[in-house]
């Protein structure tokens, strides 16, 4: 059993929801990313998505665009990200999903990427610009290597298409909660519940909801509708702001712990906000 599946199974047994966090690799530095991952796991994250920075992130809002540019300026490459994960894997067992765009993988070489990512301890991949129509050219290598190919369902995806996507899905299903790019709009709870209800019976995989969840209150409200929630831009913004002045780890860990408590139902304070400096 892979780490992703095992983690969701444990959570289900405990009656809890998964907290998936997103970090842009190399922002502010790859070393910082390496220390953030175990710290966020200790603070309650179940799965970490490592963003592979790309020059043209057309599905991302301003926060992750800026993080990607900083990471690229700092010399972050896929090689270095995989080396960081491999080294982290000696002590850290959190499921890791690489999140990004196709061209850096193509540039690395799809066959070589599949072998190296699996050997480094990557568990899943999520390639935002690789819909099922185009994914065979990558999956012919990554599926046999044991990398879960995580599929996206959007608010615009019709049931017939969702069925097709879910036939080939692995790991978990990523439901995009807003019609938009990452981190720019607040999700509407009712619509999400309705949409998930429609495709839920089509799959046995866990469903995680992301794009636009930025506060513990939203996390608490959305978690019951799915098996997990993803928080990206809010965390990336916090890391960017605290990282300028020093170590981003304490603030990021504190925010993650707040999200954890919120989705575990330990606090239900709608006024709770991430500890952003004003």
């Amino acid at each position: 059993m892979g780490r992703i599946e095992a983690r969701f199974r444990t959570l289900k047994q405990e009656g809890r929801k998964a907290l998936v966090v997103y970090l842009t690799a190399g922002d502010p530095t790859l070393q910082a990313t390496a220390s953030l991952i175990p710290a966020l796991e200790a603070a309650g994250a179940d799965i970490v998505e490592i963003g592979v920075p790309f020059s043209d992130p057309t599905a991302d809002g301003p926060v992750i665009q800026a993080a990607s540019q900083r990471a690229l300026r700092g010399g972050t490459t896929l090689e270095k990200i995989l080396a960081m994960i491999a080294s982290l894997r000696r002590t850290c067992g959190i499921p890791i999903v690489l999140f990004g765009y196709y061209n850096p993988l193509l540039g690395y070489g799809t066959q070589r990427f599949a072998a190296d990512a699996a050997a480094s301890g990557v568990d899943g991949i999520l390639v935002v610009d690789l819909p099922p129509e185009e994914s065979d050219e990558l999956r012919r290598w990554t599926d046999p290597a044991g990398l879960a190919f995580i599929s996206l369902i959007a608010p615009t995806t019709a049931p017939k298409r969702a069925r097709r996507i879910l036939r080939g899905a692995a790991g978990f299903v990523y439901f995009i909660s807003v019609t938009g790019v990452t981190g720019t709009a607040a999700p509407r709870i009712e619509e999400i519940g309705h949409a998930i209800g429609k495709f839920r019976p089509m799959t046995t995989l866990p469903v995680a909801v992301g794009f636009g969840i930025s506060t513990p209150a939203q996390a608490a409200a959305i978690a019951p509708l799915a098996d997990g929630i993803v928080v990206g831009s809010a965390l990336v913004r916090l890391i960017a702001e605290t990282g300028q002045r020093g170590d981003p780890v304490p603030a990021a860990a504190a925010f993650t712990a707040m999200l954890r408590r919120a989705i575990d139902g330990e606090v239900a304070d709608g006024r709770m906000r991430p500890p952003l400096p004003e």
Partner: protein
Amino acid sequence: MYGGRYAAETLMPALLELESAYRAARRDSAFRREFSGYLHQYAGRATPLYEARRLTEALGGAKIYLKREDMGHTGSHKINNTLGQCLLARRMGKTKVIAETGAGQHGVATATAAALFGMECRIFMGEEDIRRQAHNVYRMRILGAEVVPVAAGTATLKDAMNEAMRYWVSAVRDTFYVIGTTAGPHPYPVMVRDFQSVIGREAKRQILKREGRLPDLLIACVGGGSNALGLFYPFLAHTPVAMTGVEAAGKGLDTPFHSASITAGRVGVLHGNKTYLLQDEHGQVRDAYAIAAGLDYPGVGPEHAWLRDTGRADYVAVADDEAVEGFVALSRREGIIPALESAHAVAHAIRTAPAMAKDRIIIVNLSGRGDKDAETIAQRGEVTG
């Protein structure tokens, strides 16, 4: 294989809907008649195929014809495509259109078609291009379009397209994205090619009438490649007709400052399609440069990638200096100020014609007029009174 539909899931249903709507429209003779009507009554087609006698004489070789897309409404070939796409948008019930633009020619052409059909129009344009092409920014605003400045990246065409795609993701339910070149996710490359191929169909008819035979060589500039494909496509089956696409070598192919994706790029995926791209060894897309803002794009239409690989067309690159020489030469010899984009094609004709026999025929696609470039030329100080 080139092309494809490498797009975010949120956009996939819209792309599939667009494909079926376009297929139906293409089969519908009423749609074709309507499109053709606008091309003739509104955009001023057919554009002339003009024999450039003084340029031909000066070069002493092949006879040069110019396909005068610069004489069409809005001053470039871009109007062919925007009329087609806005008609399709209307047919699909979309009331809002968006577009990216580099030089502003596609932005102006989209704003024009949107005004004509009473649509809300938003144009994404890099801040650097807004500065370089102020004249076209005013034209778009006069036409009622909102020009949205894009500060990301190098603030040029690639970034404008990124931002247009992001906006489209958030507004996809009621908004039609009018892509300006033969790039983007399927069906855009095919659709833009079809709308632009009126250029080649006319040129073929005109040259047959004039010369009683097909030309020996077609020359067109290639940024994304829409004017070139528009000219080339109807001639593809006629194998004796050679075709050359001219990319921008900028400050030189040995520098980072060029836009020669085919000549100096590698296969990759950007903006929804697989094609030749300017990129580093890590798959990060490089910034393109060209003196002509309309060529300033790090990718190229996937059909050009295929034409290059099959050898049906060949691709060369012309540097800034040589393009400016072409610009001046055509202005002085023929009284036609070409767009700096088209001047790259003119420059290659100047390079090629002298070595060809006098009974050979070249058609150069003069894709746009050069009023917008007067300031760029003035700043170089090469033309003095």
